[in-house]
């Protein structure tokens, strides 16, 4: 079994003002020639249910304020299928989970791995919790927040 090739892209409007929402688009593209099933946990594909991003302001870590969730075993619904060449995406608003109230340049970085990626439908959900964590690299994005 080869490691599936997944391409990850983050995007955000590079400028915002204090108090405005900051929406981050997360896109995951399957660059292999077979379908994959991606566990949505700890990715923006399910919203912000944990530390999906690391956020810094002018290089300083901004503490995460959203929920941290202990999960029961995943169901098939916890996965998202991606056909060869297809892209899945979701937009999340991040200012409720990280404090963007101070002006500065915020850098948003996705985690460096997906918790589980399956290449066979029968592995969805993964039996026995034997997840296959799969590295993925999204280039970080910057948003400059100006005072009102």
């Amino acid at each position, binding site marked *: 079994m080869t490691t599936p090739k997944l391409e990850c892209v983050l995007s955000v409007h590079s400028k915002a003002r204090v108090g405005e*929402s900051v*929406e981050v688009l997360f896109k995951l593209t399957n660059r292999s020639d077979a379908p994959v099933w991606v566990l*949505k*946990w*700890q990715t923006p*594909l*399910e*919203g*912000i*249910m*944990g*530390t999906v991003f690391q956020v810094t302001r002018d290089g300083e870590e901004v*503490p*995460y*304020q*959203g*929920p*941290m*969730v*202990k*999960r*029961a*075993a*995943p*169901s098939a*619904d*916890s996965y*998202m299928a991606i056909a060869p060449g297809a892209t899945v995406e*979701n*937009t*999340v*608003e991040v200012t*409720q989970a990280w404090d963007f109230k101070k002006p500065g340049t915020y850098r948003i970085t996705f985690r460096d791995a997906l*918790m589980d990626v399956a290449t066979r439908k029968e592995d969805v959900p993964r039996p*026995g*919790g*034997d*997840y296959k*964590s799969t590295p993925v690299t999204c280039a970080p994005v910057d948003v400059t927040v100006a005072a009102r």
Partner: protein
Amino acid sequence: MSKSLRGFKWLMGTVVGVSLLSGCGAPPAEGESTPAEATEQAQGALSARVSGPKASMAASERVTVEVTLTNTSSAPVSLYKWDAPGEGLNEGRLSVSRDGQAVEYTGAHFKRVLGRSEDLITLAPGQSISGPVVVSDAYDLSVTGTYSIRYELEQREGVTALSSNEVSLFIEGRRNSREDAEAMRQVTAQSLSYSGACTSSEQSAIATAFSSAQTYSNNAYSYLNGTPSATTRYTTWFGTYSSTNWSTIKTHFNSIKNAFASAAVVVDCSCNESGTYAYVYPGSPYKIYVCGAFWSAPNTGTDSRAGTLVHEMSHFTVVAGTDDWAYGQSAAKNLAKSNASRARDNADSHEYFAENTPSLP
């Protein structure tokens, strides 16, 4: 997308705006049935109107007010469906006072996933929505008196703050679930209390789990207070041994056991998500929300209620500040092998170390 997450909502507006209102309502005449209604007040794009079914409510009656929101602007206005009246508005956007004194909100606090378009309701210019809002399940109505009730919405994206007219209702005092919770608090651990409408059997189960979590964290600390070495128990969950690494985990469990011993822990039962054991907001100690999977779990052992409380306690920034890098025993063991520094920062790894099931030397 995921159906399983639909019910899982993000906390917002934890404290419902309870402001001191003037207790201007005169006690109504006995048997009066005229709807208590006043003129609506427009403020920004939406206006709100509250009306009561009748002016006087006996202790046996459920108290409900009718709330109507109208878009008085010339553009569409979107708001979250849980801010709108009708089905789903359980966490009142009500401000309730009795004889000039603010009345405490005692109902559940809901956790909202923000920013999802499917949660938005759009009102066209001139359009109204209305529906009932239950007062008696959510506010402390234990004292007989004249209650003043107003609907309020804080300012948020796209919607300006608004406040409705005020209705006055004469309400006969009744027992509320809060009193039961207070009574229960006195007979359980002094440091443990409940929110989010935990039933008495749930409170009892939580108290048992809390006590077991204290034992788990005390035992884990005692173990780590022994001579440090690359024990099976340590390396299975936290990977590469060093005295520094051991000391990090010992510090974590010292904080966890101290928090269980003396912090004012609140366990909230308002989450029913079956795919979730529990969650916390790491910057909001020491409130732990338990969900559907918590109730299916055993009190002790792997992924137990007691272990879940240890997991959640470890997340608080002021305790051990752990994150979630891997879920489940299998993934946690793999994490210990592949990335020990993340294992030391992983909540489930702490839980499994504390549960120690099966027991490792």
